[in-house]
């Protein structure tokens, strides 16, 4: 395995027709309690600068009259102001408008209610609120999680954010499930911030724990629940020792898919609630889900009490079509390898032989005809009786796909591979079937760890990442 020196991958990702059409500067006044909502295409760049007053982007306050504008690209966002503000806008947004009716007061109330619980928890030394946010797709779950996180950080807390939505990554690529404690501000431009890089980062980095799920929906496979169990274990262990995070508790973002339910049964939600001992459940948008949830959790003993709270969906939530989501995922993958904006990274290209990699392909539920018993989450169900992975040799089919390098050894049992966290991702740039060689894009120059590598069907191929 060698590093190819000549293949000098440009650290600047090729720009997709970023032709600035109109770059006229304009200002926008926001009265107190209003929200400026905007959508920016991936091919455009939009600059926002706070001229006066206070403003926040999903809870994170914008820097006051800083020299540099915030840059947005491929963003559907909103800037809210509690006190009124004046913004300077440069560039072209796909849509933009000023909204006077927002849900921010409710969301802030949610934060203050959590703060009360945190203060109590700090006094008696218990774990702070354990929050799960559920709701259908595009109800603003991730935005709510972000607002709650930002406010908690602002109040000096250090909440752990758990992402159980594989459709979009938090601090990692799509298809992954992550957990990270937030002690510094949530980045405005990059979504959540950045995982550590080998140099100083002007964006406060977060240290995520990453698992690879490899499928698009929690309902798809049989490894979602075991992974949730595993993550709950890790997060709980962390909280046991990390006093700051223990007081702040954690906030779980979920996939819209878990909220669909089957005939009134929400087995994944229940699984998450029981594994993480969730005691605050925010239901966004869906009346029916709220009703189902409050019915289920209203009669619990006090020590297992789950407060089910309904929050209205913000009028700013827009449906993100599959095309947008795909672009968003591509952008996240690109940003994993190449960084973002000024913070450019230099991934390395490796050429490896087929037999140097130990790739385990995830067997999807649809492919294996096993009867799946809902509600039974004993490990035996996923045990050796059913194959989780099949070992595959590289093939041209793998081109443009993303591989997850786990921390598990090659000869470990499949459950161990399933439950192990991820070291990082590599991208199959090219497959040469005649020479039995792969060209890989790796974040690092060193040799690729000889661990078990998982290939899932999600995220989808990312063609043109290295072109």
């Amino acid at each position: 395995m060698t590093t190819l020196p000549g293949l000098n991958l440009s650290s600047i990702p090729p720009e997709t027709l970023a032709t600035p059409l109109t770059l006229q500067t304009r200002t926008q006044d926001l009265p107190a309690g209003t929200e400026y909502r905007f959508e920016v295409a991936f091919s455009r760049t939009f600059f926002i600068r706070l001229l006066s007053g206070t403003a926040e982007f999903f809870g994170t306050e914008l820097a006051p009259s800083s020299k540099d504008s915030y840059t947005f690209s491929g963003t559907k966002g909103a800037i809210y102001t509690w006190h009124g503000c004046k913004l300077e806008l440069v560039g072209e947004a796909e849509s933009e408008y000023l909204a006077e009716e927002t849900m921010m007061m409710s969301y802030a109330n949610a934060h203050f209610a959590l703060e009360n619980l945190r203060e109590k928890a700090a006094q008696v030394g218990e774990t702070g609120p354990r929050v799960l946010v559920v709701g259908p797709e595009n109800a603003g779950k991730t935005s709510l999680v972000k607002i709650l996180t930002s406010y908690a950080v602002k109040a000096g807390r250090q909440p752990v954010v758990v992402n159980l939505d594989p459709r979009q990554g938090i601090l990692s690529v799509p298809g992954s499930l992550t957990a990270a404690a937030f002690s510094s501000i949530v980045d405005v431009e990059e979504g959540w911030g950045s995982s550590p890089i080998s140099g100083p980062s002007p964006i406060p980095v977060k240290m995520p724990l990453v698992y690879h799920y490899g499928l698009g929906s929690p309902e798809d496979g049989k490894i979602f629940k075991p992974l949730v169990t595993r993550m709950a274990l890790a997060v709980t262990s962390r909280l046991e020792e990390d006093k700051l995070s223990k007081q702040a508790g954690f906030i779980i973002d979920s996939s819209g898919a878990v909220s669909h339910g089957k005939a009134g049964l929400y087995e994944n939600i229940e699984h998450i609630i029981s594994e993480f001992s969730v005691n605050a459940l925010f239901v966004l948008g869906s009346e029916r889900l709220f009703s189902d949830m409050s019915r289920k959790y209203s009669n619990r003993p006090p020590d297992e009490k789950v407060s089910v709270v309904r929050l209205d969906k913000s009028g700013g939530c827009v449906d993100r079509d599959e095309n947008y989501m795909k672009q968003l995922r591509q952008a996240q993958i690109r940003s994993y390898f190449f960084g973002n904006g000024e913070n450019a990274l230099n991934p390395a290209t490796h050429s490896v032989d087929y037999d140097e990699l130990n790739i385990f392909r995830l067997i999807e539920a649809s492919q294996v005809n096993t009867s799946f018993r809902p509600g039974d989450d004993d490990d035996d169900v996923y045990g050796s009786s059913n194959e989780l992975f099949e070992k595959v040799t590289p093939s041209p089919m793998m081109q443009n796909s993303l591989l997850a390098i786990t921390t598990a050894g090659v000869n470990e049992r499949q459950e161990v591979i399933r439950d192990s966290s991820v070291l990082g991702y590599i991208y199959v740039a090219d497959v040469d079937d005649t020479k039995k060689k792969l060209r890989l894009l790796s974040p690092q120059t060193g040799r690729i760890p000889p661990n078990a590598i998982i290939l899932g069907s999600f995220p989808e191929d990312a063609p043109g990442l290295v072109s």
Partner: protein
Amino acid sequence: MSLPSAEVAADFKDALQDLKINSRPEISNLTIIAKENTEHAQAISRELENHIRTTRPEWKLPALYVLDSIVKNVGTPYTVYLGRNLYRTFMDAYSLMDPGTRKAMEGLLKTWKQPVPESMDPRPVFSADVTRDIENALIKYRTVAIQQQALSQKQGMQYNMPARPMPNTPWRNTPTPPLNATRYTPSNDPRVRQFQPFSQAPPSYGGQYPPPATPPTSFQPPASYQQPSSSIDLDKLKSDLDKIITATQAAWALTPSDVPIQQKLKALLDLQTILKTQALPPEQLRQIQIQVQQLSPPPLPIPSYAPPVPVPPPAIQSPQQQATPAFPPANTPLDLAQLFANARPPVPPASTPTVSAPSLAEMLRRTTSPMQPTATSAPIPPFFSAPYSAAPPPAPALTPTPTNNLAQLLAQFSQPAAAPPVSRPPPPQNTPLPQLLPQASAAPPTVGSAEWLLNALKAQNVLPAAGTPSAPQGTPLSSEPMTRQGSATTGVQNDAELTTASMKKPRFNLISRLYEAFPNQCVTCGRRFESTPQGKERKARHMDWHFKVKDPDLAKRGIHRSWYISEKEWIEYREVDEAPPEQASNGATGAAAAPKKETRDNYVLVPTDAALVHAPCPICQEKFEPQWLVEANDFVWMDAVKVNGKIYHATCWEEYSRGAGIAAPSTPDSVLGKRKAEVSPIGSGKKVRAY
């Protein structure tokens, strides 16, 4: 990474050759070259040194400015390379310069003793031992110059010494005007006063003792305050004092490491300031004069500095004189007691309690550590107490009374001088005469200073406890609260509950907890901090972090994404806030994981030698991976040790050496130790903490 060092150095040299005037763009251009080629820092540094040594004298100063710009803007590794030969570089140039350029060079040197402006890094640009050598050499040099001048001129006052650069006063290019007794009448003209104290008082002598407590700005009292109370020989006294000071300086220059002389000099300067900024009652002046006559120094080592004139204020500081070898020891001991006895002010009871002067302590603190309002926990400014604690045996022999008076006298002197002009109303009775002790304790505004001083002295066991006039009531300094005052909560009741109904209720009053509770906002990223001292400190660290990570050369450095940490590491990991409260909460695990870390936290800087860069670890044959280490502020190989010129993985080496029974070198190879930030435990094994 790109060009070999020789080429870069040659380019740099070419650019240097063109630098013939103090041209800002050219200097910053050269700085940028240096900054972008830190991997060739050694070659560049050598080139710069050579250039400074070989170029024509009039072109040396711009080159020195380049050096200055590089060490301040780039820092390591240049400070290391350039620091090595700084003495030669500097002194060789200095000896060839004309006086004007020398002044500029001394100005440079002065800034090197201080931290880089606007950096939170408290360490000086160059380490103290580098600058001290130069400083000592300069002092010797000046002394010679003075002596020569003194010989050629009959009056010793006209010394044309090299400049003593003072950052906060514009350099006055004229030689110090001789204090003219006939011309000078103590008047209310502030201009007169402005140059008086400082044209004569070179306070910035030596790098070892703290900066002078008397920057000129804080000692220019409002004119209305000045009292031309007496004309008895005040000017003469002053000029005499100047002479004594000059003589002491010369004495000190001969033995720069002599601490007592340093202290004495400082005391003299302080008293000179007091004398010049205050009007003293005639009685006191006369007394001082008498004492000074008794104290009058015999001919000093430097011939022309032997004025037979008495010196007033040094009397107060006379304890130090005993320890002053260069100072004529003959008559000091007997003066001491007398001096103290006489120091008791036979002053009419002045009715000036309205003068609300800030205390001496406050003044001292203001001048020594201007950004430190919370230093109250240390009630005694160290340099101030030093002279007293260093006071030799006579002190215990004193009776309480004279010592009280000494303290009081000092305090009184300093009170009016310390008064900030703005806060002072034109005093109706413009006779700020020293007050008697009882009065001092009776007058609340002034008590603080006198008492503070007394307490300070007592704490040093100089003052017997019986001599203290009163209980320390109302000292504004010690009572200043250090505790965190009021947490973030603003006292608004938070009644939000986790119910759907409660979510709908508007609670605008709570929003202040997100904003007003943290009024101290970072302008770069919008993060908010409390207005408490802790909050300020956190913000300062935070700003420092912004500064650290703002490196425009990042892209060239080959930054890449790190691997994620493993489950176990994550569980043990503690977030590192860029503005940590005190010690980041890593304490518990840090201790537990300490043994493991010792080996793995060894690192070496990524070598510049091409052969070494590509050499794998000789034991495991795996290559090293450069990582950015915040502490070293450079790229390093973690988990590495250098043994006999080869670089091994520290863990490999440990295993190997354990087998072979060789002791592993345990130190991180750190030529950069000087610039190392405060040592903090590295997060988790070899993972580099980056933000």
